[in-house]
């Protein structure tokens, strides 16, 4: 891609980077710069991730022994609910779009900011407000319904802080919706000259598909929470059988959002993987159009499969049949992506740097997670394993083995761009190894436990399940260390890391053609684009030709 004429007046001279453009707290908390907002999100999601992780450690500690001897059952129920709520709503959904998406999308499409910078800042405040309110509810009394809030337990029986947490999640939903609107409008309307849809990096395609789900799906969970709150506060009876209501209706409404929500969690991660593989194989992603359309297909198809959460919940056999078939279909675009990534590596020029480790780890673990998903979609199998640890194992494979691998890979890939610093390689390898080993040790036993019959959300369990639970807890301890290490070496790199330079990986992409860290206005002049993305081969040809003809080299 070549930068040519400017389409707007060049930006007057400014501080050298967005990081040094204002040091006061106010300049951060009232920023309209998408890059700073991305960092605010990074801080926010890291905070909630640590809290959610703390709850997870408490759960795993309790499950070391068959007896419920570490905490009272009520406490345990609040702890696992806190883990689920914090992780799902305040980490998995906002993490990649909020931090990496916000930071990179304007850079990747060659513009100065997102379409609605003030709305972007509002999104962050809504996220933090919702998160803090929810945290307050979780810590000050707690909620013990599970993150799925099924009535009648959540509407009529529990005495815990369902309302506060419900409102906190509702507020956070607005954050999601506004981010989705912002991304979609930005991608539609603010691409730089020459940036056609099929010249967009796949990171952008992935976030567009994610934004579609955010906009279409989140309002449904919003109204569901409203109805639950009305039920709890005023006894509206929408889900109360005593007043003619149906508790299973809640499950339909809840999962209508919450299933597409899992694609909000995985699509951005897949988007990161595409960028990393292209960069470290120095090759265009194989089947670019197929991968782009596969993202959209996942987003669309994902809206039609929610009933696979209700196979044994009182849904009819025929509904189960249709949902099972549709769920099988949604697996196919994911399979297409995995094979296209693998074939990108074929005849690539591969440098096994840290981000690529995470990307390859993602592919292997996502394969297992996705295929256990196909298993769960299978009616005859799901009856046995529904609501057991098999489901817990499955979703952790896709959300930790999938989403978090992508997130960590993305952080390791773009950290030099965001901060201008390189991090310690040795410790990054150590932490990746710990994450990989710890992860599998934690969650593979859970797949086995589930088939053996251990139910979910159990505070105590029969003795024969203990060995696998101990393995799982051991794994979780290793995983915890693996997650804490990056916190240390990333922060240290801010002080002691070597300067990264504009393009430490030798990658192609508009974000690598500006400084590290980028200036506030992103580019001195708005670029214009003449080629497809990941133009390693074409660029190398061009360089070689230029070297041969000295008179045209300058």
């Amino acid at each position, binding site marked *: 891609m070549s930068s040519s004429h400017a389409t707007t007046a060049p930006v007057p001279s400014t501080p050298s980077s967005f990081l040094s453009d204002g040091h006061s707290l106010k300049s951060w908390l009232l920023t309209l710069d998408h890059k700073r907002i991305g960092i605010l999100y990074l801080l926010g999601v890291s905070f909630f991730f640590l809290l959610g992780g703390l709850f997870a450690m408490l759960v795993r500690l309790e499950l070391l022994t068959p007896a419920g001897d570490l905490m009272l*059952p009520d406490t345990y*129920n609040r702890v696992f609910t806190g883990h689920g709520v914090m992780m799902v709503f305040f980490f998995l959904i906002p993490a990649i779009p909020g931090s990496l998406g916000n930071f990179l999308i304007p850079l990747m499409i060659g513009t100065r900011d997102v379409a609605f910078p003030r709305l972007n800042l509002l999104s962050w405040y809504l996220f933090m407000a919702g998160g803090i309110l929810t945290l307050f509810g979780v810590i000050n009394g707690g909620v*013990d319904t*599970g993150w799925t809030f*099924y009535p*009648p*337990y959540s509407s*009529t029986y529990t*005495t815990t802080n369902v309302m506060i947490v419900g409102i906190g999640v509702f507020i956070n939903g607005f954050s999601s919706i506004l981010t989705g609107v912002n991304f979609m409008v930005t991608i539609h309307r603010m691409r730089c000259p020459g940036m056609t849809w099929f010249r967009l990096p796949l990171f952008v395609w992935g976030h567009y598909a994610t934004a579609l789900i955010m906009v279409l799906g989140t309002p449904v969970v919003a109204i569901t929470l409203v109805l639950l709150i009305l039920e709890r506060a005023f006894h509206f009876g929408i889900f109360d*059988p005593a007043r003619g*209501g*149906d*508790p*299973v209706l809640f499950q339909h409404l809840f999962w209508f959002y919450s299933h597409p929500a899992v694609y909000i969690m995985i699509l951005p991660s897949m988007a990161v993987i595409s960028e990393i593989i292209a960069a470290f194989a*120095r090759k*265009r992603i*194989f*089947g*670019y159009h197929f991968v782009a359309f596969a993202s959209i297909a996942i987003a669309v198809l994902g809206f039609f499969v929610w009933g696979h959460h209700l196979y*044994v919940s009182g849904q009819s*056999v025929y509904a189960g*049949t249709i949902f*099972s078939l549709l769920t*099988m279909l949604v697996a196919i675009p994911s*399979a*297409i992506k995995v*094979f*296209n990534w693998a*074939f*990108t590596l074929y*005849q*690539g*020029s*591969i440098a*096994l740097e840290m981000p690529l480790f995470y990307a390859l780890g993602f*592919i*292997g673990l996502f*394969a*297992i997670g996705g*295929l*256990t998903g*196909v*298993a769960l*979609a*299978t*009616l005859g*199998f799901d*009856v*046995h394993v529904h*609501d*057991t640890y098999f489901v817990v194992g499955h979703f952790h494979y896709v959300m930790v083995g999938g989403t978090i691998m992508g997130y960590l890979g993305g952080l390791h890939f773009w950290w030099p761009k965001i901060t201008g610093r390189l991090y310690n390689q040795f410790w990054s390898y150590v932490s990746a190894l710990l994450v990989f080993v710890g992860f599998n040790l934690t969650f593979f036993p859970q797949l*086995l436990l589930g*088939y*053996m*019959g251990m*139910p*979910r*959300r159990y505070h105590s369990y*029969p003795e024969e399940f203990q060995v696998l639970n101990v393995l799982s807890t051991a794994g979780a301890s290793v995983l915890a260390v693996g997650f804490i290490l990056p916190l240390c070496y990333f922060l240290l790199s801010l002080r002691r890391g070597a300067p990264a330079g504009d393009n430490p990986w030798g990658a192609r992409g508009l974000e690598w053609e500006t400084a590290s860290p980028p200036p506030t206005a992103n580019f001195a002049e708005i670029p214009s684009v003449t080629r497809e993305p990941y133009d390693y*081969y074409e660029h190398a040809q061009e360089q070689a030709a230029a070297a041969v003809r000295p008179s045209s080299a300058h």
Partner: protein
Amino acid sequence: MNFQIPFVPVQASEFAGDVDRLTFFLVGMTTVFTVLICVMIVVFTVKYRRRSADEVGSSFENSALLEITWTVIPLLIVLFTFGWGLKVFFRLSRPPASAVNYYVSGKQWMWKIQHPTGQREINELHVPLGQPTRLVMNSEDVIHSFFVPAFRVKADVVPGRTTSLWFTPSKTGRYHLFCTEYCGTEHSKMIGTVVVQEPDDYQAWLAGAPAPKSPGGAGELLFAQYACDTCHRAEPGGRGPALSGIFGTEVALAGGGTVIVDDAYLRESILTPTAKIVQGYEPLMPTFQGQLSDEALAQLLTYIKSLSSMRVAAATARLPAPSPVPPNPATSQGIAR
């Protein structure tokens, strides 16, 4: 099956084998594809590792044939999987006409089961080998789920509607029964046992009520049958006050005031438990109004009073009925009435 595959529960129903065979296929398919993908990645990464700083990859970046291959083959595999799963599911969902109906009621945090011949059980289900058995279920409060891993079958139990599941037991033995839809505090303790017996043994079981083993008598049996010991344990720390030694004492109430634990208070606590709650406890006790005859209530009161004139050993096990130390007036301790 003669040998026990690790991590697979005993196959104790006629269709458990069907489910397991489907599972083996799913495990196999998962393994094959995961290994295939991992091998591809590893081989490519090693074979095409970067050999010089400026090296780039080739321009081989699309192939309609490959796209079609890895779209169509996975599609065929998932459709096949869908079909097989559907077949097993239909078998799990369609009880034969000859199935015998048992009635199950789930409530926080116990399973109440009634045999077609009228016998009732709490947290246990006796069934005869080889009899197609259908469970017709409802919930008295929140959503629960009836799960027997050895049978490979489960169904949610939902208030306001009736759900069902069926199975034909194919192996005698005792198998776990779990509640597997989160239902509140004691969700993990809403467990029990399915006891599959030879038909003769089952008939024998049906015919005789379990004989009381101690002078605690019918009241003690009721105390176990109605799972009072779920919350009123012998040791302190349960969800409800420990009952040994409580009769005749004065207790502080939540909300102020005190009451003497006499017959009237005990009776009120069983029939309208939220009327006077002991301080420090939550209003969790369900009412037994309408579930106990006057005679049964009287027997329960006799038993509870007897707990104040003897020590009771840990009585948290529900099966079989607890056998506490028989009262010995010569060595009685605790508060005499």
